[in-house]
């Protein structure tokens, strides 16, 4: 442990601060000034990027001297309750360094891209500044999650990401798309609620961990003694470590969109594209995987036999199933963003599966390469969509298109864009090849095949699942490429689509460079010819602080993987690229499947196997019915009744309402009783008094007439005074208060005068 306080590493405190400040300042001050808003945000993320580079290289420097890296900064105490004090500090170790490399860079690229994207149309979005402040908060949350040293701060930043997801997905909340599409508000709510389900497991895991250990700081919970204690504490039939590991994994399932909590990600396509890229590639979903990476020590000591299937640990099971499920669905998607969404889910399944079988390095490596090429793919698809929207306007002006609902996301409306948008085309090709793991050249190959190698030695079922997924990935990637860029334009919009401006294409090209080059930091050394030129730097770096076992390299799985992905690419080209689809021709696979009576299967895949409808009609319906029941219990159902020919709403009270009502009625009765007592008793008294008075006055009548009469006449003169005093009672509360204050003031000053003035 590098225990001395290191100034440069302590700079990490400042990394999330600047984006957070940008987020806070924009709504408080510069809301109306758009240029200043996006300037602030880009400035903040650039500072964060610079700082993280400094911290990163310093950390690497420390590592190369000491060959281990687990730095914890001085701790500030930020929460105290009773005898407990929570400490907050910075923790820097290899996963942190890796994420610090990836996240600020991708965020910066995406923010620059957003400026171009949001400024493209003539009418700038009125909530422009708000968008950028949300993006900034997102970056702040992600950076905070990466650097802090305890699970509580991690969770707080995790929740910040949740709320940003909700705000960004539902950003264009006025959009009312086709009736069968989901609205942005609903998509935002869906994302929030589904990830919340995962968060429930997360927080249960946190609670268990805290109750058992009494601390949530990494240096405490990942220490040898703690892990020993966790594995030897029995709980729920197995040991505590397993339960905690599974619960924490639940959080990752929600956030990283693994099956069955993946349903929010495809509907998140409503968000403006650069934010979508962020959500998918660099933040929310990799946050889930990062959680697993962070808590890997607990996962390692957990009992892999619990909830395992045929020898596959539960985590790997979910991951592998998600990978292949999502890639099958991706084949049948026509919306380019949705296809990429499923592709993301599939790749995340890869990472989770890798971590599940203990391949720590491979999983993390794939996390960072995926971040780059997925961001690249999303940003380039955004460029395409923007071009298509522009082209649609253009086509309109030339009156070549009818005014029908035009979906710029639908790949069936594209085609032939390779000539019209060459830079975007290049970026998309590189991203797509990286995604399918084109051998040697792309980073996706190195990271994905690393996982396959580990799976080959670890668990054959997982290996074949992932390998088949590789083939499918190649296939649907080539499908997307061909449908979008090859052949002739299928609609007027595609004909007129212009290339995007440099603010959009430059980040694309930078990311493309990374998508290619990043692979070379982790080439296995035993690989003939290519290996050994550059040592497997990443491998050593990641394994320096964690005792994970890595299997010996074997070239067979690598060849199988490469072969399958190349086959997939080739098949895709044959089906879609050799003779590109013409306009209004339906998808070839769909046509073929219809012919062999499997059309229903294709449609099922296109509707992602109806999982969404299942959730909507099952879970959501049940919850809504429960809410109705609670409402009935509370307030009752209003009834309609005919009365004099008019329909009248008569309220019938529910249980709670009835209790309140009856309490009120009791109060009413009590007051009525008091009233009656008052009226009868007091009345009787008053009558008695009156009778007595009458007798007395009858006797004293003559006497009174003179004396009392005289007094009364005198009092009448005072009526004038009363008439004046009456005006004091204006009925206005503030006037009374003013008089009261004046009186108090006079009294106070009077007191002091009496005490202090010599009299």
């Amino acid at each position, binding site marked *: 442990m590098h225990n001395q306080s290191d100034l440069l590493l302590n700079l990490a405190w400042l990394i999330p601060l600047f984006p957070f400040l940008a987020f806070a300042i924009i709504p408080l001050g510069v809301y109306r000034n758009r240029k200043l808003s996006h300037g602030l945000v880009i400035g903040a993320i650039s500072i964060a990027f610079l700082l993280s580079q400094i911290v990163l290289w310093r950390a690497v420097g420390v590592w190369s001297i000491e060959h281990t890296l687990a730095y914890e900064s001085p701790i500030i105490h930020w929460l*105290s309750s009773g*005898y407990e004090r929570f400490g907050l500090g910075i923790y820097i170790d290899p996963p942190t360094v890796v994420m610090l490399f990836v996240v600020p860079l991708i965020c910066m690229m995406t923010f620059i891209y957003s400026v171009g994207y949001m400024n493209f149309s003539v009418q700038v979005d009125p909530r422009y500044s708000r968008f950028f402040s949300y993006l900034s908060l997102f970056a702040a949350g992600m950076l905070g999650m990466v650097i802090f040293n305890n699970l509580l701060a991690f969770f707080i930043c995790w929740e910040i990401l949740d709320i940003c997801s909700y705000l960004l997905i539902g950003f264009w909340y006025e959009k009312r798309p086709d009736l069968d599409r989901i609205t942005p508000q609903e998509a935002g709510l869906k994302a929030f609620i589904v990830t919340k389900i995962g968060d429930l497991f997360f927080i249960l895991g946190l609670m268990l961990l805290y109750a058992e250990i009494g601390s949530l700081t990494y240096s405490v919970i990942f220490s040898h003694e703690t892990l020993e204690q966790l594995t030897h504490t029995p709980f729920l039939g197995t040991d505590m470590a397993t339960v905690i590991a599974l619960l924490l994994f639940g959080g990752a399932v929600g956030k990283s969109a693994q099956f069955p909590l993946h349903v929010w990600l495809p509907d998140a396509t409503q968000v403006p594209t650069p934010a979508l890229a962020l959500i998918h590639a660099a933040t929310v979903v990799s946050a889930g995987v990062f959680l697993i990476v962070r808590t890997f020590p607990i996962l390692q000591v957990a009992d892999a036999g619990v909830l395992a299937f045929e020898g596959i640990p539960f985590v790997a099971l979910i991951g592998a199933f998600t990978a292949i499920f999502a890639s099958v669905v991706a084949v049948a998607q026509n919306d380019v963003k949705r296809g990429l969404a499923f592709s993301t889910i599939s790749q995340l399944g890869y990472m989770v599966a890798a971590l599940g079988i203990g391949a720590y390095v491979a999983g993390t490596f794939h996390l960072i390469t995926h971040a780059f090429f997925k961001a690249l793919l999303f940003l380039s698809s955004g460029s395409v969509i923007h071009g298509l929207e522009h082209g649609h306007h253009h086509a309109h002006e030339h009156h070549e298109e009818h005014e029908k609902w035009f979906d710029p996301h639908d790949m069936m409306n594209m085609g032939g864009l390779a000539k019209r948008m060459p830079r975007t085309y290049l970026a998309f090709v590189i991203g797509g090849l990286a995604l399918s793991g084109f051998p040697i050249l792309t980073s996706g190959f190195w990271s994905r095949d690393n996982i396959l190698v580990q799976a080959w030695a670890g668990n054959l079922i997982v290996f074949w699942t992932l390998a088949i997924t590789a083939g499918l990935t190649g296939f649907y990637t080539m499908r997307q490429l061909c449908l979008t860029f090859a052949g002739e334009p299928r609609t007027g919009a595609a004909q007129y689509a212009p290339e995007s401006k440099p603010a959009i294409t430059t980040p694309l090209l930078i990311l493309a460079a990374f998508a290619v080059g990043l692979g070379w930091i982790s080439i296995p050394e035993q690989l003939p010819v290519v290996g050994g030129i550059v040592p497997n730097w990443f491998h050593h770096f990641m394994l320096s602080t964690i005792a994970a076992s890595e299997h010996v390299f074997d070239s067979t799985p690598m060849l199988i993987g490469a072969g399958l992905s190349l086959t997939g690419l080739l098949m895709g080209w044959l089906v879609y690229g050799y003779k590109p689809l013409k306009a209004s021709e339906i998808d070839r696979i769909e046509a073929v499947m219809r012919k062999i009576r499997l059309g229903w299967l294709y449609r099922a895949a296109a509707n992602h196997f109806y999982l969404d409808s299942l959730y909507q009609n099952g879970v959501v319906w049940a919850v809504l019915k429960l809410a109705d029941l609670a409402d009935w219990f509370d307030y009752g159902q209003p009834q309609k009744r005919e009365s004099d020919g008019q329909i009248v709403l008569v309220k019938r009270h529910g249980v709670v309402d009835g209790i309140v009502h009856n*309490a*009120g009625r009791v109060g009413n009765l009590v007051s009525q009783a008091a009233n009656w007592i008052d009226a009868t008793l007091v009345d009787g008294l008053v009558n008695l008094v009156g009778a007595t008075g009458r007798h007395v006055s009858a006797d004293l009548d003559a006497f009174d007439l003179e004396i009392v009469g005289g007094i009364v006449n005198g009092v009448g003169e005072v009526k004038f005074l009363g008439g004046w005093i009456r005006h004091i009672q204006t009925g206005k509360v*503030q006037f009374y208060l003013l008089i009261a*204050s004046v009186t108090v*003031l006079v009294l106070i000053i009077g007191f002091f005068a009496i005490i202090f003035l010599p009299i």
Partner: protein
Amino acid sequence: MTLQQILFLIFSAITLIAALMVVTRRNLCHAALFMVLSFFGVAGLYVLLEAPFLAGVQVFIYVGGISTLIIFAIVLTRDVVDPTLPPHNRQWIAGALVMALLCSVLIWTVLGYQWTTTTPGQVPADSIARLGTILVDPEGFLLPFEVTSVLLFAVLIGAITIARER
């Protein structure tokens, strides 16, 4: 000027300036938001006074509860009065004078008295635990605590009854 003095000045400035905005803004929503800012300022002062628990309670109850209530009331009772009218009523000069006078008297009193001759001691580390204990101690504040609960219950029912739809 130590750091705490500077922080004190900053927090006091936030509190007082925000309070001034509250009482002078025409737009009630702005006033409510400035009130929230003022509450945060007060919470900051509590932190300086080494009462972090109270700072938390301040944020929870005032910002989280009462401010929300007031914003609801503002929304539910949208003024149909002519918005060009000034925010103050006809007795505002008198009110300002009285309050200014009161403020001077109070400040004069404060400055003129020797409040304490010794330096105050340290706040014990378990002060929050002590606070919790004394609230439920029969020889402490248990009775007021229970009475407050009854009060809140009564207020709950009373407020619902008063504001019900007929």
